[in-house]
């Protein structure tokens, strides 16, 4: 059994990524080169017909210009040109090889190498034999012209290779279709491919020889000269220079001295991001100015290059306006540039009141290649004593730095999120916050939180024009109720109501949405991959919103055990990362028993819970239960085919006042009985039964509520609030599904009678 730490908090790490100060290159491999055959292969589809291996997105190339090309292995392609770009299609009806590695080299030629032959490249077989464009140029009517070098002049050519001339140890000839059988048979053996043969290569005047992997990394002197507003050498400037062809080659903040930096760079395209700091007469900061110079070139000629960066080009001020009164608490602005491999540089500022200075930019078009991103985020707060509290958090992103820097809140680009903060008593303070996840770079821009009174309402006006998701959270200041949310997407022009801390609060696995590994990491709560099974809850539980997960506070005590077919597999605290165990193959019944308790001093409701659930795993994986691509399955790893376990999830909707008090004579509760899910993936087995019981005497006796099914998986329970005013009834809910799963959950002090 192993445990893993809070997975939820990995989202935090991503959110903070763009705020890390400094320079770092992480985890990106060297771009493919001639000597660097991709480890991944395009695997043609299984169905008969044609599968495009490299495509332009244009129509199928069925015109007369299409040319059939056959590899030495017998794999057949159609090569044509559409829209000026080559299109390559493999004929899978004539496909012989199980997989093909595709490679495009700087020459522009497309290569397709059958996987079994990869080890032999350069050891008997030349890459040119798999150059689709060269083969097309060679024509040959089914014969592939080749040049053969023998290690022994007396060696015989392999079957299917016909020599037309031999001079010394070099022969010229062609491959016939029968060579494919010879080649595939030879490729399965150990040792040299063909005895006595040093190499076989394509022999055609039209062939473009693959680039020789001789490192050519000539550097050229570049001077970066920065000029300030007065036309003098800039003293207060940060300059970042990056190779936009490959930031692995160069990306660094340059040390500027008297407005000058010098650096040796490889030829190519560059971006310069310069951030100037203006000072007033006293030497205090007065303004920031960003200059973004893209598509600069360092020529391969060896001539000295100068990048002149002039602060005077930065004249467009950034401003922000809101419909309701507000003042800017923070603003950020940054220009980012990404190369084709996904590495990026960014430069900008983040400012916090009261020291928010004017920020000017240079309007800059979108990057001509790779990607560029300008993101500014404004956080404006309401005047003091506004009730309810409100604030604006508005990110604006674009590939270009726009000519108009005046950003405005409108109905269309803003979502209104009305937060309803529940507390059993007055006088609490909650820290309510949100963090934006940039849809382009994934990493967060800024996250903010404010202390607001609870119980009460607080309104977030969240910018929706940028299309990203939000992570929100709410924590009781000085208390031990703290919850985080799954990523939430808000549409502009809409109003959302979100309840926080509305009970009953109990362990659940959750029903998760907005799963997008490019934006945030939401590791599977309960999943199985092969013989590894992981179970945890949505941290320590959820309130009435299944997107919320509670982080246990200091007074919390939690425990759970996991059993398989009656045998205990392990135990853990609920906030301890869960339980990961190795399990035998095949169907099984699992049981989880979980208990939570916490002090009633700070929050007297939902203080003790007991959960007893079972679920059955299927003998074979099912497609509907497969975790969405890219999400981590076990121990933070992405595993293809990871199965979401069919664990029942209960969502309670128990109407109370903001103090958690049910005031009606007849108490109602909507109950949703579904399963752990991620964006629609997960068990869709219908709920079979639901039972709700209420105890007004601390669990000594139980009264069964009237439960009606309102729709599939949805139930409505009603019961008489027969307890004394101020008493805190317990709830016990039992539900089953159609595939043998069950859950019984008891929540003490689930609500109060008001």
């Amino acid at each position: 059994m192993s445990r893993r730490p809070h997975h939820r908090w990995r989202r935090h790490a991503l959110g903070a990524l763009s705020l890390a100060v400094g320079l770092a290159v992480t985890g990106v491999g060297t771009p493919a080169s001639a000597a660097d055959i991709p480890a991944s292969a395009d695997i043609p589809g299984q169905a008969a017909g044609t599968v495009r291996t490299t495509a332009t997105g244009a129509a199928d190339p069925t015109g007369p210009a299409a040319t059939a090309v056959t590899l030495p292995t017998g794999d057949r392609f159609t090569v044509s040109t559409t829209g000026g770009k080559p299109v390559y299609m493999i004929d899978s009806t004539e496909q012989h090889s199980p997989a093909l590695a595709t490679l495009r080299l700087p020459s522009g030629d497309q290569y397709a190498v059958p996987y079994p032959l990869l080890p032999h490249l350069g050891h008997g077989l030349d890459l040119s034999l798999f150059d689709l464009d060269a083969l097309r140029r060679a024509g040959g009517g089914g014969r592939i012209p080749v040049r053969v070098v023998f290690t022994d002049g007396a060696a015989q050519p392999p079957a299917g290779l016909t020599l037309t001339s031999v001079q010394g140890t070099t022969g010229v000839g062609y491959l016939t279709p029968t060579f494919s059988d010879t080649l595939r048979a030879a490729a399965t053996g150990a040792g040299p491919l063909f005895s006595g043969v040093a190499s076989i290569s394509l022999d055609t005047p039209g062939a473009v020889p693959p680039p020789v992997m001789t490192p050519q990394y000539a550097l050229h002197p570049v001077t970066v000269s920065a000029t300030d507003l007065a036309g003098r050498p800039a003293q207060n400037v940060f300059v970042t220079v990056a190779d936009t062809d490959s930031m692995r080659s160069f990306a660094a903040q340059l040390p500027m001295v008297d407005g000058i930096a010098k650096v040796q760079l490889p030829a190519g395209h560059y971006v310069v991001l310069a951030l100037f700091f203006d000072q007033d007469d006293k030497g205090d900061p007065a303004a920031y100015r960003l200059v973004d110079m893209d598509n600069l070139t360092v020529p391969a000629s060896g001539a000295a290059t100068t990048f002149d960066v002039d602060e005077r080009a930065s004249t467009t001020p950034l401003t922000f306006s809101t419909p309701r009164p507000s003042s800017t608490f923070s603003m950020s602005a940054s220009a980012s540039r990404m190369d084709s491999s996904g590495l990026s540089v960014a430069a900008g500022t983040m400012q916090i009141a009261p020291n928010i200075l004017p920020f000017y930019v240079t309007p800059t078009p979108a990057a001509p290649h790779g990607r560029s991103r300008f993101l500014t985020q404004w956080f404006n707060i309401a005047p003091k004593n506004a009730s309810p509290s409100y604030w604006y958090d508005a990110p604006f992103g674009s590939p270009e730095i726009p000519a108009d820097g005046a950003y405005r809140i409108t109905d269309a680009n803003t979502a209104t999120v009305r937060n309803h903060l529940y507390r059993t008593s007055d006088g609490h303070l909650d820290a309510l916050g949100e963090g934006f996840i940039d849809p382009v770079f994934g990493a967060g821009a800024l996250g903010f939180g404010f202390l607001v009174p609870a119980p009460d309402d607080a309104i977030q006006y969240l910018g929706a024009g940028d299309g990203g998701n939000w992570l929100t959270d709410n924590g009781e200041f000085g208390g031990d109720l703290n919850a985080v949310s799954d990523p939430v997407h808000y549409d502009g022009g809409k109003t959302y109501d979100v309840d926080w801390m509305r009970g009953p609060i109990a362990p659940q696995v959750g029903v998760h949405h907005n799963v997008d590994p490019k934006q945030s990491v939401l590791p599977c709560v309960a999943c199985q991959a092969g013989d590894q099974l992981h179970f945890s809850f949505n941290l320590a539980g959820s309130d009435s919103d299944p997107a919320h997960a509670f982080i246990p506070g200091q007074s919390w005590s939690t425990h759970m055990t996991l059993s398989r077919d009656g045998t205990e597999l392990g135990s853990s605290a609920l906030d301890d990362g869960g339980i990961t165990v190795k399990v035998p193959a095949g169907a099984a019944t699992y049981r989880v028993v979980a208990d939570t308790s916490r002090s009633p001093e700070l929050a007297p409701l939902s203080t003790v819970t007991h959960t007893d659930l079972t679920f059955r795993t299927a003998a074979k994986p099912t497609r509907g239960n497969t975790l969405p691509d890219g999400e981590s399955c076990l121990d933070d790893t992405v595993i293809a085919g990871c199965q979401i376990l069919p664990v029942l999830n209960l969502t309670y909707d128990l109407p109370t006042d903001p103090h958690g008090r049910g005031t009606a004579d007849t108490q109602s509760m909507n109950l949703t009985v579904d399963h752990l899910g991620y964006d629609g993936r997960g068990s869709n087995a219908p709920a079979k039964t639901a039972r709700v019981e209420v105890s007004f005497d601390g669990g000594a006796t139980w009264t069964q509520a009237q439960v009606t099914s309102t729709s599939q998986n949805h139930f409505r329970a009603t019961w008489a609030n027969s307890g004394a005013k101020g008493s805190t009834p317990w709830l016990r809910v039992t539900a089953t599904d159609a595939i043998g799963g069950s859950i019984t959950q008891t929540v003490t002090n689930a609500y109060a009678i008001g």
Partner: protein
Amino acid sequence: MTFTSSTRSRTVAGLAMAAVTAVLVATPGTANATGSGATNGATTTQAAPVRDVCGTAEPGYARCFAELRTDVQGGVGVRGMAAASATGHAASLPRGLGPADLRAAYKLPATGGENQTVAIVDAGDAPTAEADLAVYRSTYGLPPCTTANGCFTKVNQAGTASPPPSNQGWSMEVALDLDMVSAACPNCRIILVEADSASSLDLAESVDTAVRLGATEVSNSYGATESGYSPTLASHYAHPGVAITVSSGDSGYGIASAPAIYPSVIAVGGTSLTKDSSARGYAEKAWSGAGSGCSAWIAKPAWQKDRHCPGRMVSDVSAVADPATGPAIYVTADGGPGWGIVGGTSASAPFIAGVIALGGHPERFADASSLYSASARAGLYDVVGGSNVESMDCGGDYQCKAVAGYDGPTGNGSPKGLSAFGG
């Protein structure tokens, strides 16, 4: 309303107090928040847990290039045969390469250098330097080198014994320098020049002091990213007749580091050195952290002929620097563990200074040109294999990959006897 930093989003916001950023991040899903995640597949030695002895340098200051193994806590006191005098029985030698290992790996003689004085330049006072050095030398059976016998001298930046400068936290760097010089040249005299601070100017002036006090070799295990300041200090590192060695840096391939870029110094790169069954008895390849780079501020010396760098290329020569295969050192100040293992090109620069001293002809090293001759190369192990790609990549070029012949991480190679060093 009050701004708070108590929960997740607030933690993010808390970082916003840093008003300015210039960051390079990886594509979403593969990113780490900090540090370098790039791997160097050519390096076979396991990365050792280390910490930089010196933190990041502010502009105008230098950082030392020592890296302390945090997994090695060897305790205090004399080890080896010498321990018998105190405990009545010998104790095993400390972990890490000792002088005999280094001599064996680089085919160096045990004698020589008697008329040589190697200076090391460091920032701030190292209060236990002499005492720690005594433990090191005693443990390995090296002759005592003390103030009393005239072998060891410690001076401040002005060249006087007192007052000592304030402690700058460089004691581990000092110990590494002293121990590596001792390992290479047990019979050399040693001058420790303690600069007033880690400012580039103070360190540069300390080099002048070392030369004025009679140093024949001066080792400098520090540096900072080259900039417009760099050329202004070059003259401090030009003292014909005196060999001046400088660490190439510990951050892999990238913008070159000063003072390693100066044409008058011997820029010392780093290797990983492991015992094997070869005729040499050791395998050596580029250390992934070894600094290399092409200067944009210092012109290419006539004696450097590499093709792709139009400026001064770092480095010239190399020796072991990988903390995973690094030398044993002894240090008790600044939280030193007693016996430990420290790496970085802070190890290789003083070692090469000691090797030059052992050869006895520092006058041949007014610059590194003599290491580029065919005859000199015959006296070097050509280090082939491994690269120093940590963040920036030179696409397999010699500038960041140890190839046959000259390359950035290891220069022309590592010592193979003394023939390349005047011996």
